[in-house]
């Protein structure tokens, strides 16, 4: 499927969404489905509470990222629907952002009532996510080749043999060496910033 055009060929149940995210199969279609079905609702949370459309785009992206991470780490509990989970994540992220901006708006915004059971999980997840967000930039500083190899291995779930068919390396050993160097460089960058390292470590411990 072309990445430049959106094609939602079928609907997804919550279970199918979780499957698509966990297995990384049809992830693009699942994300397209979420955007087409839930974005307007999520956007409204921001727009109705002093946010702009740009704010909405950023916050919804972050909420989706937190949700994907939560699902992939098995921390999503299906008793809360995907829709309500996204709603709560978006609401909390926006509340955090408003607090960060020092807006008085947050007092009016803090919700009409329910303290649902997913609240604590989300707070934990948010702290974890906040830490992880900081290091996404570190990954971007790696070269394209490194990013590609590491993504194929750790995100797409391809074996080294399968990756070899996708990249231009003589043999699997050379590819393994390259992957080792890439990962070493990434770790070096993480280690180079003690603040970043400690924040991330704390977040990982909190999130696991």
């Amino acid at each position, binding site marked *: 499927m072309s*990445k*430049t*055009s*959106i094609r939602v060929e079928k609907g997804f149940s919550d279970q199918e969404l979780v499957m698509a995210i966990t297995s990384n199969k049809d*992830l*693009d279609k699942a*994300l*397209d489905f*979420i*955007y*087409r079905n839930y*974005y307007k609702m999520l956007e409204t949370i921001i727009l109705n509470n002093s946010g702009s459309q740009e704010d909405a*785009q950023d916050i*919804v*992206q972050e909420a*989706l*990222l937190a949700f*994907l*991470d939560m699902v*992939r780490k098995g921390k999503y509990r299906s008793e809360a629907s995907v829709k309500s989970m996204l709603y709560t994540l978006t609401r909390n992220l926006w509340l955090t952002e408003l607090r960060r901006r020092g807006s008085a708006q947050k007092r009016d915004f803090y919700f009409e009532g329910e303290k649902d059971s997913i609240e604590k999980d989300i707070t934990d997840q948010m702290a974890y996510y906040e830490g*992880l*967000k900081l*290091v*996404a930039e*570190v*990954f*971007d500083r790696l070269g394209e080749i490194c*990013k590609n190899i*590491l*993504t194929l291995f*750790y*995100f*797409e779930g391809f074996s080294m043999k399968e990756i070899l068919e996708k990249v231009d390396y003589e043999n699997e050993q050379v590819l*393994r*060496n390259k992957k*080792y160097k890439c*990962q*070493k460089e*990434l*770790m070096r960058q*993480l*280690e180079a910033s003690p603040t970043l*390292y400690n924040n*991330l*470590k704390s977040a*990982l411990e909190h999130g696991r």
Partner: protein
Amino acid sequence: MEDNRAFNYYNRFDDYLKGELDPAERKKLEEELFNDSELQKEFELYKMSIDVVQLASMKNAVEEAQRRFTHYEASLAPTVTTSARTWALRVAAGLLLLMVSYGVLQFALVSSGSLYQSLYTAYQLPVTRGYQLNYTHLDSLYLHQDYDTVLAQYEKLTKKTVRDHFIAAMAAMELGQYSAAIDRFKEVRKQNQGEVRYFEQETDYYLALCYLKNEDLKQALYSLQKIKENESHLYHTAVSSETIIKLQVLLWKQ
């Protein structure tokens, strides 16, 4: 940690995290991690790097989805425009159909006689108290609608004025003698060469009606179009676009 050692450990870390180590190897690695704080720290850093890769990849996937969605939303705008255009076209098509239907109806029903009837109004000579005593004989006859006598008396006049020609023309029209009326109106124009012209615009209009009744449609159309184009013409409002269309329809039929 030097490279060879690290390389081996990293491969074992991957297998361990994927659950691909056999139980003995797994136990061995766990013992090493438990007993070696440096190795443990390296392992934590390793896991952290994997988290970074996964998070960054997810971030890219979400950003791509956002871009596709934005593109999709933008593509809806032209759809709306197209829809609006479609509606506009439908309305235009409807109007066109109405116009065509109207045209067909007009084509079927319009005749020079019916058009003439819709345009003709009997000419009323100006009647004011101050002028009553000065009415000429023809005026008087015309006011009494004695059109035959108007024409008879007109013929007897040795010296005919513009006014006489005009009253005679109007009387001829009333009697359905359109060719005679045309001749009289032409006399009006012929004599009306001075600085002050009498009955000039009345003549334009009634002469055009005579052409119409006489089936000289091209001349009628030309005359009425001139009146319609001239906003200050006395009969400008009497000639509508519909009149012109009907005349054109008559011409097509002809």
